């Protein structure tokens, strides 16, 4: 017996249905508000950081994005455009005429007043009480160490893109981790010491430019790279005398006698001589129509080790000629000296060498470091290869694990490498590198004094380029140091000489004396008497 609901009953059912729907909606909304709605969807003010920090190998800050603001104006809302331009120019340092032109241009809905304004400037702008101004959060790259690391770190553009140096070379890494840290191989303490000593010497010898590199010979990490003149990366403009050119990687130089290191390594590798073999040193050494001379007086015959110690051009030429031009080019190529070096730095330089003819005269001149130009960084890497046991090393600006060994293929025999360490130590104790010998640190090295070629291809009279390539401790090298001075002038202290033995060598010695304790290089105790203690 089924009865159709009455009208009254149908209304009740419809009302009950509506109530159920209403309760269901309320219930769903309660669940949504209390359980499902995200609570962190607010608009927290987050600083705009586009790039990761750059730190040195010890975690010290080298570069960081700091929050700053860009100021924009909306000309349509400004009450008095001329007064606004005047006030904003005073508050921010912007050009008043540019602002006024921008405000009067009807096409511009927004006019950029100033980028990256400081909190002081922001307060001055706020004090104007002007409508139509908007601040946009941005970031400015700041370099706490200023000039000391400018050339190697490089700079960014106002939009946060890398322009030069590691800022450009490590761009991908820096952009992948905004707010994070990217550790470099640079040691800020070593970098400062090298920059400090180099600046003092550059001033003392009135050199046109100067540069230095400190490299770990086993891991290839560059601990310091300084190039003078430099610039202030925080200023964003160049001052008189500043330069953005990193001469240690962007330029190639005829490095002169420090290249004899490779000539001797090649001769020892080819067993064309032994360090105690005596060679005749004629007054002039003729090759075809060319005659090779010496920079200073040499005895008529010398042991090979003294040829390196006294830096004889003629002796070095003879050793180079024993291996021959083909072998010499192959040997230098195996050390990476005939190709541009690839590192984390975007800057690179192409070496200059005899490409068409590598005959006897070219072999002889390359043997004492003329007729071939390489970048100082390439040279340092090749020196590290020669003394680290003979295995190829590629320089890196990324921090490696402590004790990392990044040595690659064997380029020269281990015995040759050991012999070269002894020879370099001999140069520092008995040769032209005596001024670099630092008591207690067993320094080895080689001086190099090259003439500077002029624009017409001829060498400039009395213009020298002095350099010193050092290793320490020489018996088991951990670090290679290269110091370069472009056109240093003689002083009274140097007895009128501007050669490397009087300019670059003592400077290298001072650098090693200051950085060796920081780097934990063991000091070889000197025979001193301690108060109340035993004689040592």
């Amino acid at each position, binding site marked *: 017996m089924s009865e159709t609901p009455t009208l009254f009953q149908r209304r009740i059912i419809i009302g009950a249905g509506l109530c159920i729907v209403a309760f269901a909606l309320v219930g769903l909304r309660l669940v949504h508000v209390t359980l499902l709605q995200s609570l962190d969807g*607010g608009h927290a003010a987050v600083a705009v950081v586009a790039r990761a920090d750059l730190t040195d190998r010890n975690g010290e*800050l080298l570069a960081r994005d*700091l929050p700053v603001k860009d100021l924009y104006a909306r000309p349509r809302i400004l009450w008095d455009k001329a007064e606004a331009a005047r006030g904003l120019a005073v508050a921010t340092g912007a050009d008043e005429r540019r602002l006024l032109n921008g405000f009067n241009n009807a096409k511009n809905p927004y006019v950029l007043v100033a980028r990256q304004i400081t909190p002081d400037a922001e307060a001055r702008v706020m004090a104007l009480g002007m409508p139509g101004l908007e601040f946009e959060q941005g970031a400015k790259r700041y370099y706490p160490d200023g000039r000391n690391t400018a050339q190697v770190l490089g700079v960014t553009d106002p939009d946060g893109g890398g322009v030069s140096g590691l800022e450009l070379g490590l761009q991908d890494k820096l952009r992948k981790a905004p707010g994070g840290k990217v550790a470099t191989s640079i040691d800020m*303490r070593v970098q400062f010491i090298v920059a400090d000593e180099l600046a003092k010497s550059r001033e003392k010898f009135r050199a046109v430019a100067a540069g230095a590199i400190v490299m770990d010979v086993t891991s290839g990490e560059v601990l310091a790279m300084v190039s003078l003149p430099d610039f202030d990366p925080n200023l964003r403009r160049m001052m008189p005398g500043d330069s953005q050119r990193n001469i240690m990687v962007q330029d190639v130089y005829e490095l002169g006698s420090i290249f004899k290191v490779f000539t001797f390594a090649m001769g020892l590798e080819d067993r064309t001589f032994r360090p105690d073999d005596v060679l005749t040193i004629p007054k002039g050494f003729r090759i075809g129509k060319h005659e090779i001379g010496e920079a200073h007086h040499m005895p008529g015959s010398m042991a090979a080790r003294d040829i390196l110690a006294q830096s004889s051009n003629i002796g070095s030429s003879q050793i180079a000629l024993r291996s021959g031009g083909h072998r010499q080019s192959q040997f230098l190529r195996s050390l990476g000296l005939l190709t541009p070096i690839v590192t984390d730095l975007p800057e690179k330089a192409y070496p200059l060498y005899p490409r068409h003819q590598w005959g006897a005269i070219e072999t002889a001149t390359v043997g004492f470091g003329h007729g071939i130009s390489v970048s100082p960084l390439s040279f340092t890497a090749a020196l590290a290869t020669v003394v680290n046991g003979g295995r190829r090393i590629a320089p890196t600006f990324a921090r490696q694990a402590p004790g990392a060994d990044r040595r690659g293929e064997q380029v020269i025999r281990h015995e040759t490498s050991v012999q070269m360490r002894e020879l370099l130590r001999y140069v520092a104790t008995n040769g032209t590198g005596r001024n670099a010998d630092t008591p207690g640190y067993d320094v080895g090295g080689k001086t190099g004094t090259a003439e500077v070629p002029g624009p017409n291809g001829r060498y400039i009279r009395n213009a020298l380029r002095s350099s010193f390539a050092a290793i320490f401790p020489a018996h088991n090298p951990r670090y290679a140091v290269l110091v370069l001075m472009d056109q240093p002038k003689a002083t009274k202290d140097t007895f009128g000489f501007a050669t490397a033995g009087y300019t670059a060598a003592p400077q290298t010695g001072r650098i090693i*004396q200051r950085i060796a304790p920081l780097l934990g290089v063991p000091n070889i105790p*000197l025979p001193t008497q301690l108060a109340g203690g035993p004689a040592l």
Partner: protein
Amino acid sequence: MVRVLNFFCVALMGLSILALYHVSEKTRVAHMELSKVGSRIAQEHSHLSVLETEWGHVASPARIQKLAETRLGMGDTASVQLYSFDLLPRRAENPGPLNNTPVQNASAQIPAAPTALVLPTSHAGM
């Protein structure tokens, strides 16, 4: 009966609406508080970032060296003045291992050039 049920349902709905409004308002206020705290945290992070950078600047080796030279009169230490800590003499008669025994005299004395013997003149003691 139906009238009572209806009244009860409407009252319940009214209460639910009030409860919902209350919860919604509390949530909104909490959300605003959270935004403020988030903003303050971000601002503090920003301040920390600036302070760390300033610290990096004031503690830079260049500034420390300048202060050490001008205020403390310090200079470079020659490598001959450096000495291994293990070889420093101990106060004990027989130097033993480094077991916190105080260092007798930590300053190395570099042998000085012999000084000329000054003989008393005939006027000495007069």
